[in-house]
């Protein structure tokens, strides 16, 4: 029990077989197919095959007025819809030089961070399900339900919010939102303690994640992995700090990093991010200014010709929208840089020589959302 368990990558006896994991497999949530060349239980090569849920979101954005693309953004990554709303709205605002009232910016931050917590809770429960623990899923969904109720009362929708507009947000906070959110934060903190006792400190989980699936910072940079994946490799990169957008520069929060680079590090990053998001929501509620929530926006929005980018820190990493405009009502080119796509890209290299169960734990720790990969 002394030295941490090390698994030597299999050298390969030459006798391999191909295991098609997916597109319908309980471990690949969604329709991701991984073509695995196996040597016994060792993964020699894992080749992700994507495109089963490709919906041409980028192309859709190029043949319709900008405002018509708004509902699409929430459907790229359905678990962090508000971040994707934010990136697109932000790109248009930057291009058209629209003013956003400060109250709207704070509301955006509050809702985005609540969305981040709910997204991390889904990841947590799905990850535990991958590892064979079923009960945490129900506990996490109970807490997530409270966030969804908060956001439903505010936006009218539970998943694909479509709440942000060019120049602000649709509607002001509903009465009682602030009190209910504070109550939720107070309830959430003891729940996090319970999560730690039930799962994080559990020896079985620790044995399954510690020293499993190391991803070096170089590998992250090579494939452009961002979000909790790169922070779990010890690189302190967070879009909210690196290129501050909205009012994040006025808020005090930590960017959790863990240098261990293993699956446990990525796990701990996300658990710590939930704590930080609670802090951000609390601060933003304290600082929330009065005023309008929607700025002045021209009736027909045409972007001046040019090339515009706007990046946000979505729950899974850096999400960037790039709009190339030729002065018409629709964008000439709309590019969505989604974090899950880059995070998946490193899987093939990182999983080489791992055991099947470990490779799946690694995949779970990347927090993949398949529609986000395929777009």
């Amino acid at each position: 029990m002394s030295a941490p368990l090390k698994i030597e990558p299999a050298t390969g006896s030459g006798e391999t077989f191909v295991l098609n994991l997916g597109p319908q497999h309980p471990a690949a949530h969604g329709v991701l197919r991984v073509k695995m060349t196996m040597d016994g239980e060792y993964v020699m090569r894992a080749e992700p095959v994507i495109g089963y849920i490709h919906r041409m979101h980028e192309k859709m954005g190029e043949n319709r007025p900008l405002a018509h693309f708004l509902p699409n953004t929430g459907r790229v990554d359905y678990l962090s819809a508000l971040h994707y709303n934010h990136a697109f709205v932000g790109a248009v605002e930057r291009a058209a030089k629209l003013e956003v009232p400060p109250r709207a910016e704070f509301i955006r931050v509050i809702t985005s961070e609540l969305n981040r917590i709910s997204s991390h809770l889904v990841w947590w429960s799905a990850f535990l399900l991958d590892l064979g623990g079923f009960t945490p899923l129900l506990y996490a969904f109970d807490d997530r339900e409270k966030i969804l109720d908060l956001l439903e009362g505010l936006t009218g929708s539970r998943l694909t919010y479509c709440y942000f507009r060019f120049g602000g947000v649709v509607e002001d906070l509903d009465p009682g939102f602030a009190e209910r959110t504070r109550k939720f934060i107070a309830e959430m903190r003891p729940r996090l303690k319970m999560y730690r006792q039930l799962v994080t400190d559990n020896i079985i989980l620790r044995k399954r994640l510690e020293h499993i699936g190391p991803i070096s910072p170089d590998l992250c940079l090579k494939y452009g992995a961002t979000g909790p994946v790169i922070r779990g490799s010890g690189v302190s990169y967070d879009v909210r700090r690196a290129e501050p957008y909205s009012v994040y520069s006025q808020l005090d929060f930590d960017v959790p990093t863990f240098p261990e680079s293993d699956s446990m590090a990525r796990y701990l990053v996300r658990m710590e991010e939930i704590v930080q998001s609670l802090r951000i929501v609390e601060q933003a509620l304290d600082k929330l200014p009065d005023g309008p929530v929607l700025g002045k926006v021209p009736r027909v929005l045409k972007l001046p010709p040019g090339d515009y980018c706007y990046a946000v820190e979505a729950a899974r990493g850096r999400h960037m929208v790039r709009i190339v405009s030729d002065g018409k009502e629709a964008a000439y080119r709309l590019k969505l840089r989604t974090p899950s796509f880059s995070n998946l890209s490193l899987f093939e290299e990182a999983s080489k020589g791992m055991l099947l169960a470990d490779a799946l734990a690694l995949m779970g720790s990347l927090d993949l959302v398949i529609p986000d990969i395929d777009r």
Partner: protein
Amino acid sequence: MSLLSTEPLRLLASLLLIIAFVGLNAAYLVLAERKGAGRFQNRPGPNEAGYGGWLQPVADVLKLISKQIMVPPESDRLLFRMAPLVVLTPAMMCLAVVPFSDTLVARNVNVGLLMVFSFGSINVMAILLSGWASRNKYAIMSAARVVSQNVAYEIPMLLVVITLLMSTGTLDLSEIIKQQAGGFWHWNFFRLDVNPLAPVTFVIFFICMLAEANRAPFDMAEAESELVAGAFTEYAGMGFGVFFMAEYANIVLGCSLATVLFFGGWQTGLGALPASWGAWKVLIGLGFFLAKMYALVFTVIWVRWTFPRTQFYGLLNLSWKILIPISLFTLLLSSVMIKLFA
């Protein structure tokens, strides 16, 4: 009455009772498991079929029976069909020697414990057969895992039982229970004078039992997030249902054995019952036996709905690096204690 006391008829009646017991247990333990899981997860569990869900097992069985049994075209047809038969038999055979109460035992064999373990080992053959015959990559991986898992866990389990046997000096299960008569401090679990680490011994026995029955957190055979449904991937309808039944039969067997070996079987733990109670004594003993056994079954369910699944090599490490050394140590300790003080 006189007819029932003739040996062949008695045996036949007992076997029918055991089959009914196993069947009912399997059906209603599934419900208990789902209800229990529901309670652990703050939800009611199945509650639509019948009052509070009491008819759920009936609905489940009807559904399973009405489904077509598929035999994959490339599979080994004979072995594929044989595996569900093989999987249920050992558990039934073993229950025949388990004394449910005073004199309430199908066949009292004086090497009962040995028989339980020898038949218990056959169980793994059935899963190997099903995995092999399915011609499915997931199934064969699962079969390979299960075989090495069961081999690894047989050893600490036997070591633990040998530790016990040194103090009991018999393989007769009824005799072992009789030795634990009197107050509950006579139960093997509390016999710290013979084996100072008796509770640890029980924990090892319990862990091994979970592993032998392929229960979470050691459910390598199914491992649904890795191997879909493992060795049972290709089974449909009642073929799958029988594997499911066998899982619960094995749990019942394991928990019965733990009750007999560690918790005094049908002994009340409050001292002997007055002899004048006659047949009531048998019934009260049965009640105590079932209460103890179902408490252990509840623990099994509780464990399943608490922990994530262990990693496969973690499982083997646990057995070879932790359980076997500890059980060897308790064996040594116990033998020293017996030599010095008994």
